[in-house]
């Protein structure tokens, strides 16, 4: 880890100003991934701007029934929040399926979204990685890639995004609130993360200097049945091999609203728009779910050693969706 300067701004505005004043700066949240990567030499900031004490650590119910979650709310607190557990249970479940109790106590909402891939080639300075250094190649493509992407990968990068939380936020139509030099803006969580394309070094749509200030869970998905399920190599404390978050509203015997997202299949949480579209207006039957999920996964392009992810994701999705409707319907 190279040496760096440390500053602790008192407000979001000060943070943005500090970023502008310090070339090579990075924001520091819980640090559970950033400090890890700094130790590996993958991240080499000149300055850390500590945003953990900014007043972004509250969860606030908005008048329209939405919920604003401050970017500095810790993962464990968000998972335990009564309103989250009650109205957006998939989010709580996703958080609790990730990492460990210790890490969740430190990791922040904003930092969780900005965590980087756990691709071993990205983490090893001795091996090629286009995400770390464009042009060096992708070590995983011919190397070990059981955990890598089956959807949306590019010749340059086959990494997956490691977050559980982000998968739930994507399915739940959350929005990510940002603050930058041009002031605040927000983007849908489902569009926040990118596919690698020709720029695998860019994980998200965040602009230089922008700070995540919060996440808003919309009223439209609040109170609906939602679930998160993850498959992993060990029973706890492991990244997903595949995961699914889904929210469903059934009205008059047909699907009136659906949000489905896959984790660990792609460079970003994979919002299953095609499956959702297929479900809208359909009776929520096992056959309908199978048809929808198969439509979504039809474009999967497994690599040499990760074809299992497609049926795994399919089965997880069918199980999660089935759990969202009364059994009598199926």
């Amino acid at each position, binding site marked *: *880890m190279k*040496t*760096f*300067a*440390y500053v*602790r701004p008192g407000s979001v505005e000060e943070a943005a100003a500090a970023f502008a004043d310090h070339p090579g700066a990075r924001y*520091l949240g*819980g*640090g*559970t991934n950033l*400090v*890890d990567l*700094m*130790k*590996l030499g993958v991240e080499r900031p000149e300055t*850390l701007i*500590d945003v*953990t004490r900014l007043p972004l650590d509250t969860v606030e119910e908005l008048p329209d029934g939405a919920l604003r979650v401050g970017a500095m709310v810790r993962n*464990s607190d968000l*998972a*335990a*929040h*009564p309103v989250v*557990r*009650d109205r957006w*249970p998939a989010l*709580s*479940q996703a958080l*609790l*399926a990730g*990492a*460990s*109790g*210790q*890490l969740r*106590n*430190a990791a922040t909402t904003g930092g969780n979204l900005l965590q980087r891939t756990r691709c071993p080639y990205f983490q090893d300075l001795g091996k090629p990685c286009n995400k770390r250094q464009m042009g060096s190649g992708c070590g995983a493509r011919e190397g070990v890639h059981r955990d890598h992407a089956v959807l949306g990968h590019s010749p340059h990068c086959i990494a997956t995004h490691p977050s559980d939380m982000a998968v739930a936020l994507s399915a739940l139509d959350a929005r990510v609130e940002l603050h930058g030099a041009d002031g605040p803006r927000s983007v849908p969580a489902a569009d926040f993360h990118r596919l690698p394309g020709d720029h695998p070094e860019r994980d998200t749509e965040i602009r230089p200097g922008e700070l995540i200030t919060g996440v808003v869970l919309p009223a439209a998905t609040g109170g609906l049945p939602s679930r998160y399920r993850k498959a992993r190599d060990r*029973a*706890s*404390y492991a990244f997903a091999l595949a995961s699914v978050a889904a929210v469903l509203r059934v009205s008059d015997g047909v699907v009136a609203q659906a949000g489905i997202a896959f984790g660990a299949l792609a460079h970003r949480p994979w919002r299953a728009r095609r499956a959702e579209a297929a479900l809208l207006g359909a009776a929520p039957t096992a056959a309908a779910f199978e048809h929808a999920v198969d439509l979504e996964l039809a474009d999967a392009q497994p690599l040499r050693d990760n074809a299992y992810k497609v049926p795994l994701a399919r089965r997880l999705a069918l199980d999660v969706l089935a759990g969202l409707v009364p059994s009598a319907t199926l």
Partner: protein
Amino acid sequence: MGSQQHGGSGQDTAASPRHRSDTTLRVNGTPRTLTVDNRRVLLDLLREDLGLIGAKKGCDHGQCGACTVLVDGRRVNSCLLLAVALDGCEITTVEGLAGDGEELHPLQRAFRKRDAFQCGYCTPGQLCSAAGVLAEAAAGHPSHVTDPARPSGEPVPLDREEIRERLSGNLCRCGAYPHIVEAVEDVIP
């Protein structure tokens, strides 16, 4: 007493002024003010600057839990926390787990009684983590195995499945897990 610096060998000599900072922590009840290399994580501060070797460096990357301590009462991986960012925080390590006048914390006694360790390297982290688990469950924090339908805000009863899931961030290669679970069960109020 009070604010002091331990004779940490190379403290701050490896960093230029703009790469170091003053930080004040209360460690096991004692205020400590140190000038630290900004790179220094809490784990290394405890071990190198304060001579508190209880928190262990098993992986240095948040992947094993041997470094677990309590910061403001919450269990965390001290290997991933920059000391400079903890200015003003209250740190409890295994050395400070037992309360004033207490010889051993009940968890420490239970770990001995149940033979809940072998090599002992993960043990301080297991103990601090278990202390955190008890507090989290009492505060109603759910886990991955808690029934999502369980009402919020009420203490979560810790059965064996809950204990196992909640302690899963603390790896033990000697395989003392079953005895650790028994030890934690022993101290559940």
